[in-house]
């Protein structure tokens, strides 16, 4: 069972819909007790960084998430804002993030973008990925994913980078460490490419040797 965290941001229904079509049961919850017992977690999110962190805190979800992800090592996938929340913080706001991934979230650097490119970055982008990570098993060609964001993650070390895409410049579009992964793109809105990633997440078995990264 996959628990989709409801903290008042973003489009949970799309994720639930895609998981349903793929045949994986899911539950949407904002209850810290349910979250604490979760086997597998998706942290979705669209919106403002500070709003997201405050909503998590007000619902008592930060402690629950720390418990289930850090102590019980349940696999978690952050999507879009949910991925950015895994970092220490964002230029978008002042709230600290969950600090699970040694990275920051920064605004697209206008000075590095050609004038024709707008912010937010909205659209499909070919995405390079770390083929050794279970989330990206099974792709035979470069997948395309849908992105909608004005901010992107910047990792302290390359070992935390899971995927990359280009928008004016190459940016980190996915991060991962151990049982934690986050993607800037929206798998739930990325047709068959997204289905592969969500199915891989649902099947991600940390017990298998070689599956977990240090």
């Amino acid at each position: 069972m996959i628990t989709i965290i409801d903290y008042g941001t973003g489009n949970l229904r799309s994720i639930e819909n895609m998981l349903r079509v793929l045949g994986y049961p899911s539950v949407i919850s904002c209850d810290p007790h349910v979250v604490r017992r979760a086997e597998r977690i998706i942290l979705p999110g669209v919106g403002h960084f500070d709003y997201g962190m405050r909503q998590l805190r007000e619902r008592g979800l930060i402690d629950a998430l720390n418990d289930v992800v850090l102590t019980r090592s349940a696999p978690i996938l952050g999507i879009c804002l949910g991925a950015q929340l895994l970092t220490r913080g964002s230029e978008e706001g002042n709230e600290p993030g969950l600090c699970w991934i040694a990275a920051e979230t920064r605004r697209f650097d206008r000075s590095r973008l050609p004038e024709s490119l707008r912010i937010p970055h909205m659209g499909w982008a070919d995405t390079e990925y770390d083929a050794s990570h279970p989330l990206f098993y099974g792709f035979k060609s470069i997948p395309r994913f849908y992105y909608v964001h004005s901010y992107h993650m910047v990792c302290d070390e390359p070992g935390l980078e899971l995927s990359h895409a280009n928008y004016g410049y190459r940016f980190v579009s996915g991060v991962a460490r151990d049982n934690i992964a986050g993607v800037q793109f929206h798998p739930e809105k990325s047709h068959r490419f997204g289905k592969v990633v969500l199915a891989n997440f649902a099947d991600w078995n940390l017990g298998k040797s070689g599956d977990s990264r240090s």
Partner: protein
Amino acid sequence: MRVIPTLLIDGNGGLVKTIRFGKRTYIGDPINAVRIFNEKEVDELVLLDIDATLNARGPNLHLIEDIVSEAFMPVAYGGGISSVSQMADALRCGVEKVVVNTAFHQNPGLIGESAARFGSQSVVGCLDIRRGIFGGVSLMTHSASRKFQGDALRIAEAWCSAGAGELMVYSVDRDGTRRGYDISALKQIAERVEVPVIACGGAGSFEDFVSAHDKGNCSAVAAGSLFVYHSSTLGVLINYPNRAELDTKVFSKLLCNQ
């Protein structure tokens, strides 16, 4: 560049296509159309309920939910949205973005409120523009049944500084005519704002997409007739080019392909 089918739904939940926001042709069942667009892996969909504001009602949430439940691409919904709570309802149904025209003209404060709540990327301002006989551009509201006094460029700028993450510019007098986008209006607006601009109204061919991008400075192109009618017979045919076709006929011809 994103290539986006625009689907218009009426008060009965049917899929229709208009000409100049007037004469309507019934196209079919929107859910079926979305299923086809889903199979064709379209970049994105815009779904507009063209009767909601006219009939002074909010979005038909059940219909939206049914339509998007199997749409595995981003969907923007517009029609009848006049409050943050209606936006929250629509987003909860499974759409990624809300498209607002009339309510942003009437209550510009709503733009900032909604951007703060959902993030700019979920807030699409739609400018319905109509070119008069002397070439001037008027702003229209309520499915183009009313005129709004104001300067399109200034309003575009104000909406974006208030927090709109994207602008859709819908040419009323070109809607359904297939005579090409209003490139000069698009260009003027796109040059005034930082956010992506979606061209809408008038697309008749893939060349129009290229012009909207290269000459109109638009980041996305939307089209209705082109994707719901068979090009030569004008019979109903839900269609969308495949990746290879888009590459050769559109993307490879763009000056700067992003």
